[in-house]
């Protein structure tokens, strides 16, 4: 700034580097892939959907509509703590980088957030996880259910984008209307946001101590993992919705490449943990191949493009202040809880497919090579399409 005559201090320079500009996407994605391996080594792979379901169950229970004596409190359940950490970590990152504001979308958009959330809640139950747990972590765990979900996600994102374009053409009023923004940062100076961001971050570093003091050391770990994911996602805006949607939109392939690389890295880490018997070989291999994975992926793909955020993306963007995603988060939780209840009651949960652990089928070498080949094909397809825009709808 011109009015500052002295050189910026070392701290200010470093602050601007971390919170003044976006982090590069590919290194951030590799960090996410690495953190996922750490999380699996610590306890279990990353997913957002079981945390959502826990919130929904808890909501129904507190309304007296559900009686589950075994229900774990959202403040103690691992999946829920990961999600809360993600939300609060993203909030802290958004405040520190002066990108927080409460942004209220027009009514039609809020409606789409709700429908998207419901579809994601249903899809995540059919596929045994959201796009993180059911696809990213599942493929990394060498489960065929994850591969089926990937296929469903591709088709679902394509169809959902087609719908959005149809809506804009036939029904342009739906996404226009009154919108408002609150608590936006001032144009100049640092303002109050970074101060609040530092306080939030301090609180997030204090909470794990409180957890372990109360005898919940494991929960403290989950919270820190969640916060780390929140910081990385908000600062880099790495996004799996973009990885699936963008090849059909502008053709931009950076997030697709980032996702393919991150998944390959996670897969190698997971394979080491499993092959060295540090983890059970069949961990995170669910009976969703192929009906549950494919149909769940399709519904989830439709929902995530409609809502503008996936399992993780809805949460960290909610932390950044997008009200549309607050709606999506609530409906994801409600939809996830309800559809699980229905799947259990109708005994459909056992009919979604089989659990196929790829190394049991073709051996470790071929299993790993097949996943690498799948990721390389995704990477190459997106990069080729980036120039040719053969699959672009706009």
């Amino acid at each position, binding site marked *: 700034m011109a009015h500052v005559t002295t050189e910026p201090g070392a701290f200010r320079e470093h602050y601007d580097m971390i919170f003044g500009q*976006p982090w590069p996407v590919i290194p951030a994605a590799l960090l996410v892939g690495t953190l996922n391996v750490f999380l699996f080594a610590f306890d279990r792979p990353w997913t957002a959907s079981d945390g959502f379901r826990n919130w929904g169950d808890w909501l129904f229970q507190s309304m007296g509509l559900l009686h589950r004596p075994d229900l774990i409190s959202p403040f103690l359940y691992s999946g829920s703590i990961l999600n809360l950490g993600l939300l609060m970590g993203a909030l802290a990152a958004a405040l520190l980088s002066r990108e927080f504001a409460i942004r209220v979308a027009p009514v039609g958009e809020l409606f789409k957030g709700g429908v998207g959330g419901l579809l994601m809640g249903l899809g995540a139950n059919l596929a045994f996880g959201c796009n993180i747990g059911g696809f990213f972590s599942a493929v990394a765990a060498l489960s065929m259910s994850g591969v089926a979900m990937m296929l469903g996600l591709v088709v679902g994102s394509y169809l959902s984008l087609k719908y959005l374009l149809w809506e804009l053409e036939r029904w342009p009023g739906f996404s226009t209307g009154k919108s408002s923004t609150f608590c936006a940062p001032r*144009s100049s100076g640092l303002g109050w946001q970074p101060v609040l961001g530092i306080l939030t971050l301090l609180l997030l570093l204090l909470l794990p101590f409180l957890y372990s003091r109360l005898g919940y050391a494991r929960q403290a770990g989950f919270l820190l993992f969640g916060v780390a994911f929140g910081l990385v996602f908000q600062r880099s805006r790495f996004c799996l919705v973009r990885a699936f949607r963008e090849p059909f939109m502008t053709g*931009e392939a950076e997030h697709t490449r980032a996702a393919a690389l991150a998944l390959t890295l996670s897969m190698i880490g997971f394979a080491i943990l499993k092959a060295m018997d540090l983890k059970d070989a069949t961990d995170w291999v669910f009976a969703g191949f192929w009906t549950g994975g494919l149909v769940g992926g399709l519904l989830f793909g439709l929902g995530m493009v409609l809502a*503008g955020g996936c399992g993780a993306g809805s949460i960290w963007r909610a932390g950044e202040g997008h009200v549309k995603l607050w709606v999506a988060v609530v409906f994801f939780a409600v939809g996830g809880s309800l559809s699980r209840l229905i799947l259990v009651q109708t005994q459909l949960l056992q009919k979604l497919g089989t659990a196929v652990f790829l190394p049991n089928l073709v051996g470790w070498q071929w299993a790993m090579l097949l996943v690498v080949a799948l990721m390389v094909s995704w990477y190459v397809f997106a990069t080729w399409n980036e120039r040719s825009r053969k699959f672009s709808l706009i």
Partner: protein
Amino acid sequence: MSDTEDRVTSTAGDVGKQAVDKADLTLDCRGLLCPMPALKTSTAIKNLQIGQILEMLTTDPGAKPDMLAWSKRTGHELVRMEEKSGVLKFYIRKTV
């Protein structure tokens, strides 16, 4: 940059830093998020003549990388980007 001036978003080279006289069409995407601003821009720019300028307003921080990618891939020129009180303004010249 003085205290009262708008924040002009820094990008590589000259992208998004040129001066703009006036826009031929304004598109309000405030409150919307990914992918709506980019999709609406794609639809709106069809109503312009080559050389005309579209002004797009949004409040989504994700629109910054989105619109850079959009302009790179569609070929329309991103003439100027600025930011004021949480509102991002993009000026795009139709080129194709």
